[in-house]
């Protein structure tokens, strides 16, 4: 029966081919298909809210608390911040420190930075009750994760994102808080923290006790502990040094838009082109990449038109635009304004 044999051989060959191809397809770099270009339409900008400033009160030396009221405000989770658009057009980020369930108002606190870039001075001196302010957000880049136990380290105004976290922790959670500042009078929310934390709170004022003893705090931090730190850069570096293995460190910088040490230089690898370009301090990624790829599309160079959005394959991005949503920020950036947080970025270019 040569006919039957032919059929059997053909069927067997077909089965083998299918198996062989399936494995190849799975290991092929072309599979899954690369992400398609983003759709041409359908991405509204982050919606701005116009809120009424109903309270502007001094709660500690150099710290004011603002209450912004509106209707049906989006809910937020502890650690979230708002972008506040000041009357001069400056945009500054402030952590929310009120009640996350309150949909009729947001509360933020701001410290006056004497030699800052003008945002905090405007908050302190130009804002008055009854003004209408534009805010964007809330967004959360400092979310509270599940952990066996928690250690919070707050420096000065860095207490603001931590406060709602403490209120949100379940009653049986195991946690401690180290709260440091220059003087007791300059540290907001001390009374409230005293009630909330009891003996889990350690307050260190520099003028009384000097620098906080971080080694003592970290003596019994073990794997499985989540450490949350928000404060000046020096404090956060000191905490990062003392982290034991297996514990998770979460940091929140005061000014996501502007690190104190200015723009750092870093490298950008263009994966598809196969080249790496250096981005010096003071030069945008766009400008550096355009030397290699002069036809790259861009336009406003200020982070609002969205033309230069590129996919990020690896590396941590410091987003400085006002356009992208959190979901988009997870895998792309506007290369005209945003920079690398580490020393290296890999772009799909």
């Amino acid at each position, binding site marked *: 029966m040569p006919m039957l044999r032919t059929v059997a051989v053909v069927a067997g060959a077909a089965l083998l081919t299918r198996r062989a191809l399936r494995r190849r397809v799975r290991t092929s770099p072309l599979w899954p298909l690369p992400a398609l*270009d983003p759709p041409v*339409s359908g991405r509204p*900008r982050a919606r*701005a809210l116009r809120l009424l400033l109903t309270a502007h009160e001094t709660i500690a030396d150099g710290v004011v608390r603002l209450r912004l009221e509106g209707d049906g405000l989006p809910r937020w989770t502890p650690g979230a911040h708002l972008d506040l658009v000041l009357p001069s057009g400056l*945009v500054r980020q402030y952590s929310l420190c009120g009640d996350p369930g309150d949909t009729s108002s947001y509360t933020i606190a701001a410290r006056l930075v004497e030699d800052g870039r003008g945002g905090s001075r405007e908050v302190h001196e130009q804002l008055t009750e009854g003004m209408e302010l534009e805010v964007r957000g809330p967004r959360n880049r400092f979310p509270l994760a599940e952990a066996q136990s928690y250690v919070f380290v707050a420096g000065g105004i860095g207490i603001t994102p931590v406060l709602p976290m403490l209120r949100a922790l379940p009653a049986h959670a195991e946690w401690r808080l180290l709260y440091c500042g220059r003087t007791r009078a300059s540290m907001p929310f001390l009374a409230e923290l005293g009630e909330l934390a009891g003996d889990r709170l350690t307050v260190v004022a520099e003028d009384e006790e000097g620098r906080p003893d971080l080694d003592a705090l970290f003596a019994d931090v073990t794997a499985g502990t989540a450490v949350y730190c928000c404060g000046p850069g020096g404090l956060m570096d000191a905490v990062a040094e003392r982290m034991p293995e297996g514990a998770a460190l979460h940091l929140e910088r005061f000014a996501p838009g502007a690190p104190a040490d200015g723009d750092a230089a870093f490298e950008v690898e263009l994966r598809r082109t196969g080249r790496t370009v250096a981005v010096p301090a003071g030069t945008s990624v766009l400008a550096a990449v355009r030397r290699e790829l002069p*036809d790259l599309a861009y*336009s406003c160079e200020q*982070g*609002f038109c969205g033309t230069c959005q590129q996919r990020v394959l690896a590396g941590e991005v410091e987003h400085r635009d006002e356009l992208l949503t959190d979901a988009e920020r997870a895998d792309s950036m506007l290369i005209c304004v945003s920079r690398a947080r580490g020393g290296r970025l890999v772009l799909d270019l």
Partner: protein
Amino acid sequence: MESERVPLKARNVSFSWEDTPLHWVPGDPFTTHTINVLHLLLPAGERWFVHVYKQALPLIEDERLRADVIGFIGQEAVHSQSHDEVLPHLREQGLDPTPYTAQVDWFFEKLLGDRTLPPGRARRWWLLERVALIAAIEHYTAFLGDWVLGAAELDRRGADPTMLDLLRWHGAEEVEHRSVAFDLFQHLDGSYRRRARTWATAFTALVFLWQRGVRFFMENDPTLTAPKYSVKDFHDRGRQGVLPSTGAMLRSIPRYLGRGYHPSHEFSTAQAVAYLEASPAALAAERAEPSAREAA
């Protein structure tokens, strides 16, 4: 004849819509909705411009034109975002535009999107065809922009100032960059047959989409029980000056099809620039700009 060159740059405007009523031309839903169709077509349409022009950018060999196209892209991207922000406001007032915008999205993303074409001649042909379509559409956006800048009757009827500012800021930028699309088409191809053919396609599509949008809004407006409207309404509003007049629209056709057409011979840059210097939204964007630079 005007030929002065204005360097093009995107302005980071923002509008707040809380105080804008559903019928923002008081007591005239037909005019309101005829103009509202812009909010349905422009977000997808202008994003499509940006999408096509990003592909055309590497083909440009003239540095001045490239700078213009880069400015054009940013302006169109911000236009698209700004009109998109009106849609949630319409939805809040009970007029959900999603069924219609879904069709417009299909139109620009699928029908006019990137086809699976072999690189080379076929792909270039489709790109040039779309660049020519954009040039034809930009003739009409500049026409509408120039019209709305001079439409004093809308102010007299008490139309919503925020909406007028959006339309006039947008119109002024359209007039400001009216030559870019045509220059790009001339630079890349410039064939008269393609210009005529794509004009016919664009004009038909615009009329089709526009009347469909007006019908969609009128039929679904929750405050209108038995809406009545016809082509005559459009003609009458044109004579009153709250919509472009039929005559002016018909006269604009032979202009674009004339062999010696160039957008810089049409409309007034001075009127547009004057408006941009006084527009509340553009001024706010101007003021905010140094801070954006500082934050960057």
